[in-house]
Protein backbone atom coordinates (compact mmCIF):
# COMPACT_ATOMS: atom_id res chain seq x y z
CA UNK A 1 0.00 0.00 0.00
CA UNK A 2 1.42 3.42 -0.97
CA UNK A 3 1.86 6.18 1.67
CA UNK A 4 -0.96 8.16 0.01
CA UNK A 5 -3.37 5.22 0.22
CA UNK A 6 -2.25 4.54 3.81
CA UNK A 7 -2.90 8.19 4.69
CA UNK A 8 -6.31 8.21 3.01
CA UNK A 9 -7.87 5.36 5.03
CA UNK A 10 -7.91 6.96 8.54
CA UNK A 11 -9.45 10.16 7.11
CA UNK A 12 -12.07 8.16 5.20
CA UNK A 13 -13.03 6.15 8.30
CA UNK A 14 -13.28 9.35 10.36
CA UNK A 15 -15.38 10.85 7.56
CA UNK A 16 -17.87 7.97 7.94
CA UNK A 17 -18.24 8.82 11.63
CA UNK A 18 -18.34 12.61 11.13
CA UNK A 19 -21.01 12.41 8.38
CA UNK A 20 -23.05 10.17 10.66
CA UNK A 21 -22.84 12.86 13.32
CA UNK A 22 -23.89 15.59 10.81
CA UNK A 23 -27.10 13.78 9.76
CA UNK A 24 -27.88 12.97 13.40
CA UNK A 25 -27.56 16.65 14.32
CA UNK A 26 -29.85 17.56 11.38
CA UNK A 27 -32.39 15.01 12.62
CA UNK A 28 -32.54 13.24 9.24
CA UNK A 29 -33.60 9.56 9.15
CA UNK A 30 -30.51 8.47 7.14
CA UNK A 31 -26.96 7.37 8.08
CA UNK A 32 -24.36 8.56 5.50
CA UNK A 33 -21.92 6.37 7.47
CA UNK A 34 -20.44 4.91 4.27
CA UNK A 35 -19.52 8.23 2.63
CA UNK A 36 -15.81 7.78 3.49
CA UNK A 37 -15.81 4.19 2.23
CA UNK A 38 -17.30 5.27 -1.12
CA UNK A 39 -14.91 8.26 -1.38
CA UNK A 40 -11.88 6.03 -0.65
CA UNK A 41 -12.98 3.43 -3.21
CA UNK A 42 -13.64 6.11 -5.86
CA UNK A 43 -10.26 7.79 -5.22
CA UNK A 44 -7.96 4.82 -4.74
CA UNK A 45 -9.71 1.67 -5.94
CA UNK A 46 -11.55 -1.32 -4.47
CA UNK A 47 -8.96 -2.60 -1.96
CA UNK A 48 -8.49 0.77 -0.27
CA UNK A 49 -12.31 1.01 -0.04
CA UNK A 50 -12.59 -2.49 1.40
CA UNK A 51 -9.84 -1.82 4.00
CA UNK A 52 -11.57 1.48 4.89
CA UNK A 53 -14.90 -0.29 5.45
CA UNK A 54 -13.46 -3.13 7.52
CA UNK A 55 -11.09 -0.92 9.58
CA UNK A 56 -14.03 1.43 10.18
CA UNK A 57 -16.19 -1.34 11.60
CA UNK A 58 -13.36 -2.68 13.80
CA UNK A 59 -12.34 0.75 15.10
CA UNK A 60 -16.01 1.63 15.72
CA UNK A 61 -16.36 -1.59 17.75
CA UNK A 62 -13.17 -0.78 19.70
CA UNK A 63 -14.01 2.89 20.30
CA UNK A 64 -17.65 2.39 21.32
CA UNK A 65 -17.37 -1.07 22.85
CA UNK A 66 -20.22 -2.25 20.64
CA UNK A 67 -19.14 -5.39 18.78
CA UNK A 68 -22.68 -6.41 17.90
CA UNK A 69 -22.61 -4.70 14.53
CA UNK A 70 -19.34 -6.26 13.27
CA UNK A 71 -21.22 -8.63 10.87
CA UNK A 72 -22.29 -5.51 8.91
CA UNK A 73 -18.65 -5.16 7.76
CA UNK A 74 -19.77 -7.42 4.90
CA UNK A 75 -22.10 -4.62 3.73
CA UNK A 76 -19.18 -2.15 3.79
CA UNK A 77 -17.17 -4.53 1.59
CA UNK A 78 -20.02 -4.81 -0.95
CA UNK A 79 -20.42 -1.00 -1.01
CA UNK A 80 -16.66 -0.48 -1.51
CA UNK A 81 -16.50 -2.96 -4.40
CA UNK A 82 -19.55 -1.46 -6.14
CA UNK A 83 -18.31 2.12 -5.60
CA UNK A 84 -14.98 1.18 -7.18
CA UNK A 85 -16.85 -0.37 -10.12
CA UNK A 86 -18.87 2.85 -10.45
CA UNK A 87 -15.65 4.89 -10.44
CA UNK A 88 -14.11 2.63 -13.10
CA UNK A 89 -17.16 3.14 -15.34
CA UNK A 90 -17.28 6.94 -14.87
CA UNK A 91 -20.25 6.59 -12.51
CA UNK A 92 -19.62 9.97 -10.82
CA UNK A 93 -19.51 12.12 -13.99
CA UNK A 94 -22.95 13.71 -13.46
CA UNK A 95 -25.73 13.97 -10.87
CA UNK A 96 -28.04 11.59 -12.74
CA UNK A 97 -25.39 8.88 -13.29
CA UNK A 98 -24.29 9.12 -9.61
CA UNK A 99 -27.93 8.75 -8.52
CA UNK A 100 -28.42 5.67 -10.74
CA UNK A 101 -25.28 4.02 -9.32
CA UNK A 102 -26.45 5.06 -5.84
CA UNK A 103 -29.74 3.23 -6.37
CA UNK A 104 -27.85 0.10 -7.49
CA UNK A 105 -25.49 0.24 -4.49
CA UNK A 106 -28.49 0.86 -2.20
CA UNK A 107 -30.32 -2.21 -3.52
CA UNK A 108 -27.27 -4.44 -3.07
CA UNK A 109 -26.43 -3.05 0.38
CA UNK A 110 -30.08 -3.29 1.47
CA UNK A 111 -30.33 -6.91 0.35
CA UNK A 112 -27.13 -7.84 2.20
CA UNK A 113 -28.27 -5.92 5.31
CA UNK A 114 -31.63 -7.71 5.22
CA UNK A 115 -29.96 -11.14 5.18
CA UNK A 116 -27.67 -10.23 8.12
CA UNK A 117 -30.50 -8.53 10.06
CA UNK A 118 -32.79 -11.54 9.64
CA UNK A 119 -30.30 -14.39 10.02
CA UNK A 120 -28.09 -12.97 12.78
CA UNK A 121 -30.28 -10.42 14.60
CA UNK A 122 -33.82 -11.79 14.00
CA UNK A 123 -34.89 -8.42 12.59
CA UNK A 124 -33.81 -6.28 15.56
CA UNK A 125 -30.89 -3.93 14.69
CA UNK A 126 -30.57 -0.10 14.63
CA UNK A 127 -33.59 1.65 16.16
CA UNK A 128 -34.75 3.50 13.01
CA UNK A 129 -34.81 0.45 10.71
CA UNK A 130 -36.29 -1.76 13.46
CA UNK A 131 -39.10 0.77 14.00
CA UNK A 132 -39.97 0.50 10.27
CA UNK A 133 -39.71 -3.33 10.49
CA UNK A 134 -42.09 -3.34 13.50
CA UNK A 135 -44.54 -1.06 11.67
CA UNK A 136 -44.57 -3.30 8.57
CA UNK A 137 -44.88 -6.42 10.73
CA UNK A 138 -47.84 -4.79 12.52
CA UNK A 139 -49.47 -4.22 9.12
CA UNK A 140 -49.49 -7.99 8.57
CA UNK A 141 -46.29 -8.69 6.61
CA UNK A 142 -44.13 -11.66 7.64
CA UNK A 143 -40.93 -10.93 9.55
CA UNK A 144 -38.75 -11.77 6.53
CA UNK A 145 -40.78 -9.45 4.27
CA UNK A 146 -40.74 -6.64 6.86
CA UNK A 147 -36.96 -6.87 7.40
CA UNK A 148 -36.27 -6.93 3.65
CA UNK A 149 -38.54 -3.98 2.86
CA UNK A 150 -37.22 -1.88 5.78
CA UNK A 151 -33.54 -2.60 4.98
CA UNK A 152 -33.81 -2.09 1.22
CA UNK A 153 -35.98 1.04 1.61
CA UNK A 154 -33.66 2.83 4.04
CA UNK A 155 -30.45 1.76 2.25
CA UNK A 156 -31.80 2.80 -1.15
CA UNK A 157 -32.35 6.42 -0.04
CA UNK A 158 -29.15 6.51 2.03
CA UNK A 159 -26.74 5.13 -0.59
CA UNK A 160 -28.32 7.22 -3.35
CA UNK A 161 -27.53 10.35 -1.30
CA UNK A 162 -24.03 9.07 -0.46
CA UNK A 163 -23.06 8.52 -4.10
CA UNK A 164 -24.59 11.85 -5.16
CA UNK A 165 -22.62 13.71 -2.43
CA UNK A 166 -19.36 11.91 -3.26
CA UNK A 167 -19.97 12.72 -6.95
CA UNK A 168 -20.35 16.42 -6.10
CA UNK A 169 -17.09 16.29 -4.10
CA UNK A 170 -15.17 14.46 -6.86
CA UNK A 171 -16.34 16.93 -9.53
CA UNK A 172 -15.32 19.83 -7.24
CA UNK A 173 -11.77 18.53 -6.77
CA UNK A 174 -9.14 20.85 -8.24
CA UNK A 175 -7.34 19.13 -11.17
CA UNK A 176 -4.07 19.29 -9.22
CA UNK A 177 -5.55 17.25 -6.34
CA UNK A 178 -7.48 14.87 -8.62
CA UNK A 179 -4.27 14.13 -10.55
CA UNK A 180 -2.85 12.47 -7.42
CA UNK A 181 -5.67 9.91 -7.50
CA UNK A 182 -5.91 8.29 -10.98
CA UNK A 183 -9.20 6.55 -10.07
CA UNK A 184 -10.80 9.96 -9.35
CA UNK A 185 -10.15 11.21 -12.89
CA UNK A 186 -11.74 8.09 -14.36
CA UNK A 187 -14.69 8.37 -11.91
CA UNK A 188 -15.66 11.80 -13.24
CA UNK A 189 -14.65 10.87 -16.83
CA UNK A 190 -12.02 13.64 -17.17
Amino acid at each position, binding site marked *: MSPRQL*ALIPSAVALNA*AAGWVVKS*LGLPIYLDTIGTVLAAALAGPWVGV*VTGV*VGQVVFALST*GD*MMWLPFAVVQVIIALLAALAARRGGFRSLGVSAAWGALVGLAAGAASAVISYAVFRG*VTATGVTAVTTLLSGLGLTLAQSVTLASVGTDLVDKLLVLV*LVGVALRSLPRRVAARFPWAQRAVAR
Partner: protein
Amino acid sequence: MNGRSAPLVARAHPFTPLVLAAAIVVLAFALPAPRGPMALYAATAALVALAGAPRALITGAIVCLPLWFFLFILHVALRGGDGLDAALAQGARLGAIATASAALLRSFRPSRFLDAMAVRGLSFHAAYLIVATLQSLPRLRARAHAIQEAQRARGLRLRGAPLGRLRALVPLTLPLMLGSLAEVDDRAMALETRGVAARRRTPLAPPSWSGWDVLACSAAAAALLLALGWRVVSP
Protein backbone atom coordinates in the same frame (compact mmCIF):
# COMPACT_ATOMS: atom_id res chain seq x y z
CA MET B 1 -3.96 2.21 38.16
CA ASN B 2 -1.37 -0.20 36.69
CA GLY B 3 -0.17 -1.60 40.02
CA ARG B 4 -1.38 -4.70 41.86
CA SER B 5 -4.35 -2.72 43.30
CA ALA B 6 -5.75 -1.95 39.80
CA PRO B 7 -8.73 -4.08 38.71
CA LEU B 8 -7.97 -7.27 36.79
CA VAL B 9 -9.45 -5.82 33.59
CA ALA B 10 -6.89 -2.95 33.62
CA ARG B 11 -3.93 -5.25 34.41
CA ALA B 12 -4.74 -7.89 31.79
CA HIS B 13 -2.61 -8.35 28.68
CA PRO B 14 -4.25 -6.29 25.84
CA PHE B 15 -5.05 -9.49 23.89
CA THR B 16 -6.84 -11.26 26.80
CA PRO B 17 -10.08 -9.17 26.84
CA LEU B 18 -10.11 -9.36 23.03
CA VAL B 19 -9.82 -13.18 23.08
CA LEU B 20 -12.51 -13.46 25.78
CA ALA B 21 -14.89 -11.10 23.95
CA ALA B 22 -14.39 -12.99 20.65
CA ALA B 23 -15.04 -16.30 22.43
CA ILE B 24 -18.25 -14.90 23.96
CA VAL B 25 -19.47 -13.78 20.50
CA VAL B 26 -18.92 -17.29 19.06
CA LEU B 27 -20.38 -19.03 22.14
CA ALA B 28 -23.50 -16.82 22.01
CA PHE B 29 -24.42 -18.40 18.68
CA ALA B 30 -22.94 -21.88 19.26
CA LEU B 31 -24.67 -22.73 22.57
CA PRO B 32 -28.14 -24.34 22.45
CA ALA B 33 -30.99 -21.81 22.73
CA PRO B 34 -32.54 -20.48 24.88
CA ARG B 35 -30.75 -21.85 27.98
CA GLY B 36 -27.23 -21.69 26.53
CA PRO B 37 -27.26 -17.95 25.68
CA MET B 38 -29.03 -17.17 28.99
CA ALA B 39 -26.37 -19.06 30.99
CA LEU B 40 -23.66 -17.32 28.91
CA TYR B 41 -25.13 -13.89 29.74
CA ALA B 42 -25.12 -14.77 33.46
CA ALA B 43 -21.54 -16.08 33.23
CA THR B 44 -20.38 -12.98 31.31
CA ALA B 45 -21.99 -10.70 33.91
CA ALA B 46 -20.25 -12.61 36.75
CA LEU B 47 -16.88 -12.56 34.92
CA VAL B 48 -17.13 -8.82 34.20
CA ALA B 49 -18.03 -8.06 37.84
CA LEU B 50 -15.15 -10.24 39.12
CA ALA B 51 -12.71 -8.59 36.71
CA GLY B 52 -13.51 -5.20 38.27
CA ALA B 53 -15.65 -3.64 35.52
CA PRO B 54 -19.19 -3.72 37.01
CA ARG B 55 -20.14 -0.55 35.08
CA ALA B 56 -19.87 -2.61 31.88
CA LEU B 57 -22.98 -4.48 33.09
CA ILE B 58 -25.00 -1.25 33.18
CA THR B 59 -23.56 -0.01 29.85
CA GLY B 60 -24.39 -3.34 28.20
CA ALA B 61 -27.95 -3.25 29.57
CA ILE B 62 -28.45 0.37 28.37
CA VAL B 63 -27.25 -0.58 24.85
CA CYS B 64 -29.62 -3.57 24.83
CA LEU B 65 -32.76 -1.92 26.27
CA PRO B 66 -34.20 -0.72 22.90
CA LEU B 67 -33.21 -4.02 21.27
CA TRP B 68 -34.94 -6.06 24.02
CA PHE B 69 -38.03 -3.86 23.62
CA PHE B 70 -38.20 -4.48 19.86
CA LEU B 71 -37.50 -8.23 20.31
CA PHE B 72 -40.50 -8.44 22.63
CA ILE B 73 -42.76 -6.48 20.26
CA LEU B 74 -41.67 -8.34 17.08
CA HIS B 75 -41.47 -11.91 18.42
CA VAL B 76 -43.93 -12.01 21.35
CA ALA B 77 -46.54 -9.24 21.06
CA LEU B 78 -47.09 -9.30 17.28
CA ARG B 79 -48.38 -12.31 15.34
CA GLY B 80 -45.90 -14.08 13.05
CA GLY B 81 -42.92 -13.70 15.41
CA ASP B 82 -40.64 -16.54 16.53
CA GLY B 83 -42.05 -16.71 20.09
CA LEU B 84 -40.83 -16.06 23.64
CA ASP B 85 -38.00 -18.64 23.61
CA ALA B 86 -36.45 -17.14 20.47
CA ALA B 87 -36.79 -13.61 21.90
CA LEU B 88 -35.16 -14.67 25.20
CA ALA B 89 -32.31 -16.44 23.39
CA GLN B 90 -31.60 -13.48 21.09
CA GLY B 91 -31.96 -10.99 23.97
CA ALA B 92 -29.45 -12.99 26.06
CA ARG B 93 -27.03 -13.26 23.10
CA LEU B 94 -27.11 -9.49 22.57
CA GLY B 95 -26.80 -8.89 26.35
CA ALA B 96 -23.72 -11.13 26.63
CA ILE B 97 -22.05 -9.54 23.56
CA ALA B 98 -22.86 -5.96 24.62
CA THR B 99 -21.57 -6.58 28.19
CA ALA B 100 -18.36 -8.20 26.89
CA SER B 101 -17.90 -5.31 24.42
CA ALA B 102 -18.36 -2.71 27.16
CA ALA B 103 -15.78 -4.49 29.34
CA LEU B 104 -13.41 -4.68 26.37
CA LEU B 105 -13.78 -0.93 25.83
CA ARG B 106 -12.95 -0.24 29.49
CA SER B 107 -9.75 -2.28 29.23
CA PHE B 108 -8.68 -1.01 25.79
CA ARG B 109 -5.59 1.22 25.76
CA PRO B 110 -4.44 1.96 22.18
CA SER B 111 -0.75 2.38 23.11
CA ARG B 112 -0.58 -0.94 25.05
CA PHE B 113 -2.49 -2.67 22.27
CA LEU B 114 -0.02 -1.40 19.66
CA ASP B 115 2.95 -2.45 21.82
CA ALA B 116 1.42 -5.94 22.03
CA MET B 117 0.96 -5.94 18.24
CA ALA B 118 4.59 -4.86 17.72
CA VAL B 119 5.81 -7.69 19.99
CA ARG B 120 3.86 -10.16 17.83
CA GLY B 121 5.62 -8.74 14.77
CA LEU B 122 2.51 -7.24 13.13
CA SER B 123 3.21 -4.69 10.40
CA PHE B 124 3.59 -0.94 10.89
CA HIS B 125 0.75 -0.45 8.37
CA ALA B 126 -1.81 -2.30 10.54
CA ALA B 127 -0.68 -0.45 13.67
CA TYR B 128 -0.69 2.90 11.88
CA LEU B 129 -4.22 2.38 10.51
CA ILE B 130 -5.67 1.74 13.98
CA VAL B 131 -3.82 4.57 15.79
CA ALA B 132 -4.26 7.19 13.03
CA THR B 133 -7.97 6.34 12.75
CA LEU B 134 -8.55 6.59 16.50
CA GLN B 135 -6.77 9.97 16.45
CA SER B 136 -8.71 11.21 13.40
CA LEU B 137 -12.17 10.46 14.84
CA PRO B 138 -12.40 13.29 17.41
CA ARG B 139 -10.54 15.73 15.11
CA LEU B 140 -12.93 15.28 12.17
CA ARG B 141 -15.97 15.38 14.43
CA ALA B 142 -14.72 18.70 15.84
CA ARG B 143 -14.23 19.95 12.27
CA ALA B 144 -17.78 18.88 11.34
CA HIS B 145 -19.05 20.88 14.33
CA ALA B 146 -16.95 23.93 13.31
CA ILE B 147 -18.25 23.74 9.71
CA GLN B 148 -21.82 23.51 10.98
CA GLU B 149 -21.36 26.61 13.17
CA ALA B 150 -19.68 28.54 10.33
CA GLN B 151 -22.44 27.68 7.83
CA ARG B 152 -25.11 28.59 10.38
CA ALA B 153 -23.42 31.98 10.86
CA ARG B 154 -23.61 32.45 7.07
CA GLY B 155 -27.37 31.90 7.20
CA LEU B 156 -27.72 28.16 6.51
CA ARG B 157 -30.93 26.78 8.04
CA LEU B 158 -30.40 23.56 9.97
CA ARG B 159 -33.94 23.25 11.32
CA GLY B 160 -37.38 23.21 9.71
CA ALA B 161 -38.85 21.07 6.92
CA PRO B 162 -37.03 17.78 6.04
CA LEU B 163 -36.34 18.96 2.45
CA GLY B 164 -34.61 22.10 3.75
CA ARG B 165 -32.46 20.02 6.13
CA LEU B 166 -31.64 17.65 3.26
CA ARG B 167 -30.44 20.63 1.18
CA ALA B 168 -28.11 21.59 4.04
CA LEU B 169 -26.19 18.32 3.52
CA VAL B 170 -24.11 19.63 0.59
CA PRO B 171 -22.72 22.76 2.33
CA LEU B 172 -22.04 20.65 5.44
CA THR B 173 -20.46 17.51 3.94
CA LEU B 174 -18.58 18.98 0.95
CA PRO B 175 -16.10 21.08 3.03
CA LEU B 176 -15.71 18.08 5.33
CA MET B 177 -14.73 15.77 2.44
CA LEU B 178 -12.43 18.30 0.73
CA GLY B 179 -10.83 19.26 4.07
CA SER B 180 -10.07 15.63 4.92
CA LEU B 181 -8.47 15.14 1.49
CA ALA B 182 -6.19 18.13 2.12
CA GLU B 183 -5.15 16.42 5.37
CA VAL B 184 -4.35 13.24 3.41
CA ASP B 185 -1.75 15.13 1.40
CA ASP B 186 0.10 16.36 4.50
CA ARG B 187 -0.03 12.94 6.14
CA ALA B 188 1.17 11.12 3.01
CA MET B 189 4.14 13.47 2.78
CA ALA B 190 5.00 12.85 6.45
CA LEU B 191 4.80 9.08 5.92
CA GLU B 192 7.00 9.25 2.81
CA THR B 193 9.57 11.38 4.68
CA ARG B 194 9.72 8.80 7.48
CA GLY B 195 10.13 5.87 5.07
CA VAL B 196 7.16 3.90 6.41
CA ALA B 197 7.97 0.65 4.63
CA ALA B 198 11.37 0.23 6.26
CA ARG B 199 10.40 0.72 9.89
CA ARG B 200 9.64 -1.88 12.55
CA ARG B 201 8.78 -0.63 16.05
CA THR B 202 10.43 -1.92 19.19
CA PRO B 203 8.20 -1.28 22.24
CA LEU B 204 9.87 0.24 25.30
CA ALA B 205 7.67 -1.60 27.82
CA PRO B 206 6.05 -4.61 26.12
CA PRO B 207 2.94 -5.94 27.94
CA SER B 208 3.58 -9.29 29.61
CA TRP B 209 1.37 -12.37 29.99
CA SER B 210 0.42 -13.23 33.58
CA GLY B 211 -0.86 -16.56 34.89
CA TRP B 212 -4.40 -15.11 34.88
CA ASP B 213 -4.10 -14.21 31.18
CA VAL B 214 -2.98 -17.73 30.26
CA LEU B 215 -5.74 -19.27 32.42
CA ALA B 216 -8.47 -17.02 30.93
CA CYS B 217 -7.41 -17.62 27.31
CA SER B 218 -7.07 -21.39 27.89
CA ALA B 219 -10.54 -21.52 29.50
CA ALA B 220 -12.03 -19.58 26.56
CA ALA B 221 -10.39 -21.96 24.06
CA ALA B 222 -11.64 -25.02 26.01
CA ALA B 223 -15.20 -23.61 26.20
CA LEU B 224 -15.16 -22.92 22.44
CA LEU B 225 -13.91 -26.43 21.62
CA LEU B 226 -16.56 -28.01 23.88
CA ALA B 227 -19.40 -25.90 22.43
CA LEU B 228 -18.35 -26.44 18.80
CA GLY B 229 -17.76 -30.17 19.47
CA TRP B 230 -21.22 -30.43 20.99
CA ARG B 231 -22.70 -28.72 17.90
CA VAL B 232 -21.01 -31.29 15.66
CA VAL B 233 -22.04 -34.44 17.60
CA SER B 234 -25.54 -33.35 18.71
CA PRO B 235 -28.43 -34.39 16.40
